[in-house]
């Protein structure tokens, strides 16, 4: 029973840390499936976390915070879009730039506005998201196994958490069952086909980066307004890159993205939990190894040793109408 409780606790924190990964990785999915590579997920998330934390504390409203987070993230996404779609610049360089701008600006503006060493003020009740209890969670808690799963693992999360998980099938539906999704996937594979079908490649790609901005914004809001109560400088701490790794690991497919994020989240949760504890068979595993594992797995996948990650064919290449 003790092992079971531990497992529940680990899974619970897996869910908690996976949420921003899922949101950010799905954000990247919209952009990259449309042929715009985005290594600026980290920066957009960070800027959104800051904007959310700041606006929520100033206006005393979580919803305003969420709106600000999304707005700022979309603005940065549009900068990336402008550089890579309109100006046909290097998408990698643009993404790197956005990461740094966000990293610096959040600290400078945070210090200027709140003078708490780059933090935003602690968010109080109503200024942050609260968890929701599913019906009968308390009553069912004592039912063995299932009750614990229901009340401890499924219940008691933020609305954003449920939103993130709901977004996975939704994204799948958008991608494979709507006109927008069909065109989005097409433009990432062969923009020429989209253009000759009479669809604007530019506008389609802009819509894709805007989707990416919105989701990165929500991911950021989750970090500063749900997972914690306020922005702390550099709080994304590489989550944007883990999400990128998860996206590649998932071979740019929405349901795979969820599992990849849960896997990477699980590794994260384990590494915190395991500090100093030995595992049954392998003995003590350095916590750093667990932390590096997502990246190592992604590299191995990229190398083509376990399956092959084939990015959208037109990814990273600006569309030039030419025959």
């Amino acid at each position, binding site marked *: 029973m003790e092992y079971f409780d531990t497992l529940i606790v680990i899974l619970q924190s897996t869910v908690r840390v996976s949420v921003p990964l899922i949101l950010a990785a799905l954000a990247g999915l919209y952009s990259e499936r449309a042929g715009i590579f985005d290594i600026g997920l980290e920066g957009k998330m960070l800027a959104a976390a800051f904007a959310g934390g700041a606006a929520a504390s100033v206006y005393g409203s979580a919803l305003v915070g969420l709106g600000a987070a999304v707005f700022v993230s979309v603005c940065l996404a549009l900068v990336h879009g402008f550089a890579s779609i309109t100006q046909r610049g290097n998408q990698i360089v643009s993404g790197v730039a956005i990461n740094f701008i966000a990293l610096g600006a959040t600290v400078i503006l945070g210090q200027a506005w709140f003078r708490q060493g780059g933090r935003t003020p602690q968010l109080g009740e109503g200024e942050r998201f609260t968890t929701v209890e599913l019906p009968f969670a308390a009553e069912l808690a004592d039912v063995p196994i299932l009750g614990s799963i229901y009340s401890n693992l499924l219940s008691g999360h933020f609305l954003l958490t449920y939103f993130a998980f709901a977004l996975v099938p939704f994204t799948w539906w958008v991608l494979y*069952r*709507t*006109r*927008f*999704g*069909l*065109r989005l*996937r*097409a433009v990432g*594979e*062969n923009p*020429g*086909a*989209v*253009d*000759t*079908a*009479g*669809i604007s490649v530019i506008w389609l790609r802009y819509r894709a980066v805007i989707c990416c901005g919105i989701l990165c914004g929500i991911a950021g809001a989750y970090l500063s307004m749900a997972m914690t109560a306020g922005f702390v400088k550099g709080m994304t701490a590489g989550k944007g890159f883990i999400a990128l790794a998860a996206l590649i690991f998932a071979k740019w497919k929405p349901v795979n993205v969820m599992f990849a994020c849960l896997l990477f989240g699980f590794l994260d949760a384990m590494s915190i939990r395991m500090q100093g504890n030995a595992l049954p068979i392998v003995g003590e595993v350095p916590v750093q190894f667990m932390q590096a594992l997502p990246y190592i797995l992604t590299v191995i996948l990229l190398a083509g040793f376990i399956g092959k990650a084939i990015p959208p*064919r037109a990814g990273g290449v600006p569309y030039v*109408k030419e*025959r």
Partner: protein
Amino acid sequence: MNDIAIELKGIDKKFGLVHANKNINLSVRKGTIHGIIGENGAGKSTLMSILYGFYQADTGDIFVDGRKTVIRDPNAAIAAGIGMVHQHFMLVENFTVLENIMLGAEESQILNAGITKARQELKRLEEEYELEVDPDAIIEELPVGLQQRVEILKALYRGAEILILDEPTGVLTPAEADHLFRILEQLKDQGKTILLITHKLREIMAVTDEVSVMRRGEMVATRTTAETSVEELAELMVGRRVLLHVEKGPASPGDVLLSVENLTVRDSRGVDMVRNVSFNVRAGEIVGIAGVAGNGQSELLQAISGIRRAVTGKVLLQGEPIHVTGKADPSDLRHRGLAHVPEDRQHMGLVLKFDESENSILGYHDDPKYLKGMFLDIDAIRNDAADKIEKYDIRPPNPRLKTANFSGGNQQKIVLAREMERDPAVLVIGQPTRGVDVGAIEFIHKRIIEMRDAGKAVLLVSVELDEIRSLADRVLVMFDGRIVGERAPDTSEGELGLLMAGVEDTKEAAQ
């Protein structure tokens, strides 16, 4: 009275200095197959792109069904009932047939409703035009012929009444091509109008009702197919050109220096571009390969020079084999006496951002005479470049000038100087005078003759028929990846033109 599907009036289009279409007039009758024929660069594709809204004409008007129509983008073309099957298919390769057909014509935001309708419509089209294709097949798993069928279905699904096919048989086997022609007949019977762009006379004669000939951006003639002949068309296509005058004595061929046996080369799509080609080039002769671009000449050159792997075949350089199917290495071939002037001067033969002297050693940069240990001997390189500049009259005479700043002719001279001054045994040249000014052409031709007279074996590939005729001692004609005939250089243009257009038995055709 309104039996004209499409009428073009005074279409004119320039790309910078290139005058791609000059005051084009064309009218296409409804319910006919109208061929447009011309050599590469004659302006056919540009004209069709204007009709499909990919480009805008500088001046001129388009009339569809007698109404003046402005076609600003492909959308407008689709709305006007024009569909296009592109030379390079515009398909999303990892999509299903159905998804490709629906793309851009989905009917509603959510696909499901449309999918059912699309399936029905597709089924109807398939039955009506006998165009069977599995709607759930993935494009990249289909053979090329079926992929093309999807392109046709795509256009029909959008309600196209006028169908443009741009070089549709380039990627097809003869059997697939025949099938395509049957489909086109079928479409015509159903009242569709078809514009067929091609450079193959056989196709024109086989399926078209009328044919228009383009040459160098101009529409030179329109004929009723039944009333014309391949000879007339070939002549119209190639034009009566003044043979460039090149001083040239008789050749005195010696040993075979380059021998190609049963060479087959496949491109990345898996299409055989060179099919079982064999020929020899002897010392002291120029063998010219004539043909319309895209018939496998590029792949042939690249395989011989070690840049592209061949599937099967044997190539001997001065009697020693080149591993064309394996590890042929361009730098090793250079050491063995094979010099190569590539067709694509700007991307392959030169690095445009390098200065002139740097380009004058490309490929020979491992020669000890340019090196001091691991370092480049800059003085030696620049002096060497300066010598070549003088000898080849390259202007401006500045070895330190960025190569992009030289004119086309001078860029070509940089490449020629580099390859010819190595005193190779075999010289392989692709398109020696493409984009080269008239003054330089004469100089380049003289140099090539001099190489021959110095006992080199020269293999010359050019799409300029008059260039081949004035330089080569023997002419091989390439069509559809094969060498379809060997002729003497003084063979008439008409006969060579027929061969280039795929009419193999010229004697029979001439009767």
